[in-house]
């Protein structure tokens, strides 16, 4: 019986496994090797240098600058985005008027390409014709911030775009979770005299735990990446104030022809994401409630 089972499963699984190994596992393994080499990304084969790249990274201000920008995103994006998404999901599920319209509108940025969003928001932040600066000037503020041109505001301008872009996606995740919470729980709470606030904090939020966990993982990956939006809006500037690991490694690889070093940054980035993901699953582990 057992032998029979594998005899059937293996041939079906093999093509997928082969493709996966060839196009996912193998490049990963190769990248791991490149991270320990010096390589210009041209023809000569990589030269093995052991831990040199990682040593260099420790003393590289640009690496620490990029990592700290990633950490700022990592702290603020989950709080703002998930908080906002949860709020929207809760309000819409309360059957406010035009709730379907809101749902589609908030989700809409998610279907747009990152490049389009970057260009669109570059116009929004445009210092002379952009809507923010024009509005501020209209109400009498003479020197509105140069959003993307000033190191003090550039990073936060990108935070705002990312929240705008991704909140809708998490809202949909939360709404799906809310729909699966049995009505009877709400009815019981209402009978006990619970208001909107306590209903949310005592019933909705605790029962959305599974959705929150996976959302946290998603937003962590977004905060550690940030390549597309940064590359289209600021290229890491001004003066590296929005540089993140992904843009830094791109610069090293494709501008300075240092593929070995770039790949070692990618490895660090990969390890950080894996550790954070495991940590999130570990810390937020709770008993799942079946309903």
């Amino acid at each position, binding site marked *: 019986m057992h032998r029979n089972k594998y005899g059937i499963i293996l041939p079906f699984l093999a093509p997928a496994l082969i493709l996966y190994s060839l196009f996912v596992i193998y490049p990963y393994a190769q990248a791991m090797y490149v991270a320990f080499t*010096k390589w*210009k*990304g*041209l*023809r*000569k084969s990589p030269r093995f240098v052991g831990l040199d790249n990682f040593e260099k990274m420790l003393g590289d201000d640009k690496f620490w600058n990029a990592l700290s920008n990633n950490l700022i995103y990592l702290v603020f994006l989950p709080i703002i985005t998930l908080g906002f998404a949860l709020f929207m999901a809760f309000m819409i599920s309360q059957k406010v008027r035009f709730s379907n319209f809101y749902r589609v509108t908030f989700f809409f940025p998610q279907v747009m390409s990152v490049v389009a969003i970057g260009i669109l928001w*570059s116009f929004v*932040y*445009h*210092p*002379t014709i952009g809507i923010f*600066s024009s509005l501020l000037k209209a109400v009498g503020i003479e*020197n509105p911030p*140069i*959003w*993307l*041109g*000033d*190191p003090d505001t550039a990073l936060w301008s990108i935070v705002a775009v990312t929240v705008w872009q991704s909140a809708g996606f998490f809202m949909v995740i939360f709404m799906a979770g809310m729909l699966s919470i049995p009505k009877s729980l709400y009815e019981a709470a209402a009978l006990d005299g619970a208001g909107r606030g306590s209903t949310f904090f005592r019933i909705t939020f605790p029962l959305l735990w599974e959705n929150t966990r996976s959302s946290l993982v998603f937003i962590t990956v977004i905060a550690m990446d940030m390549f597309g939006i940064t590359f289209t809006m*600021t*290229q890491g*500037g*001004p*003066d*590296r104030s929005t540089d993140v690991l992904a843009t830094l490694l791109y*610069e090293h690889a*494709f*501008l*300075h*022809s*240092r593929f070995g070093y770039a790949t070692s940054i990618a490895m660090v980035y990969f390890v950080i994401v894996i550790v954070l993901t495991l940590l999130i699953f570990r810390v937020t582990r709770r008993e799942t409630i079946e309903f």
Partner: protein
Amino acid sequence: MKKSGISRRRFIEYTGAAGLGIGLSSVLPQILLAKTGIKVASGATNPLGLAANTQAEGVFFSGGFGHAYIEYAAEIFAEVHPGSSMSVEGIQRVGERLRPRIIAGNPPDVMDNSGAGNLDTGALVGEGEILDLGPLMSAPAIDTPGKTFGETLFPGSQNSGLFDGVQRYVNIAFTVFGVWHSKSLFDEKGWNYPTTWDGMLSLCDTIKSSGIAPWTYQGKYPQYMLFGLLEPMVSKIGGTQIWKDVDNLVPGAWEHPAMLQALNMMKALHDNGYIMEGTPGLTHTESQAEWLQKKAAFIPCGTWLENEMRSITPGGFDMVIKSVPSDDASKLSWIDASSGEPFMVFSNGKNPVAGMEFLRCLLSKESAKWFAQNVGSIMPVVGGAEGVELSSAMTSALTAVENAGPNILDRPSFPGWYSDIYSEVKDSMGALLTGRASAEEFIERVQGASDEVREDEDIVKFKRS
């Protein structure tokens, strides 16, 4: 100082404005080919020994110039060598497209390595991927009888393609760098282009009080202020040896007093509030658009500006280019000019000879004329602008070069050789012009990057004189 050797008289001769090239060419026998109209000089049909029926492949950056001019050169190629052909593919982001093919050992025969995301030329040369173009330089020119290919190119125009004395690429566009303004605006307001930097600052004061911002620059890409202002200013104040020292990574090269003086002169634009508000948040085209709307009086750029902004340039704007003034009025005419758009041949391509032969066709007089007529730019080819009508921008650029006489300033090579230093210049320049860094801090940061490059044994070093 590198004197390019273009005298006033000879420059007119070079561009063919006086039609002097024609007299010479009619003496020697030529074969006129019908389709493109190229007149092949006798004995210049196939000096490099292109094999019959060669089907070669070219991949080219297609940016501000488009790639129709390359297709035209391919027509010349096919006409001169019946049975052979050069395929032309115009692309963007050359590096991403060609890198896998280079790694696989299957590069095309010839490429134009320009534009954003191009390949690191220093690394390519260092890895031995790029052919020595010596045979091409000494081969007879295709339609200038009695001259070699190298002799038909503007003197000094191919210096940036020399790596340790070996010609690795040829530049096909002749570009003048400087400061632009609208002649009609200046005439209307009665402003005159200043002859010294002090004059520039007092004119800025006048401009500012009229409600126009005196300056803007390509905000998110502050490196435009390097080639527009810093390079010529430093050369005018302290001589051209400084940039050679910078290129040769001489310790302390950036700490030259002329560098400090020039940076402080530039910083005065920010300190006096002469830079248009919002400039740091603009891209190159956005800032150039503001300038075209006369919201700012001056902007630094190269001669591609006219073509780049053609579709939104208001009628009667009359853009003209001038050299940046410095401490010495007598050096006003000194101007940065160089050739860009590097075309190179792969040493591991299937048909390196076809690559070189194609470049001989591309930099022919016939092709240069087509380029001037249809692209509105100049190839560094003697006689290449013969009988072509030029715009105000192009005319002002040619006048500027003519006035500069022997004082055409070479652009430094470090941006192409050492991308790390260039990145640091870009970042520090933005900091300087927004008041976040002093001139001293600029120098400290860039000198630091230069020192790091010098000490990094993995970076291939080049020398120039």
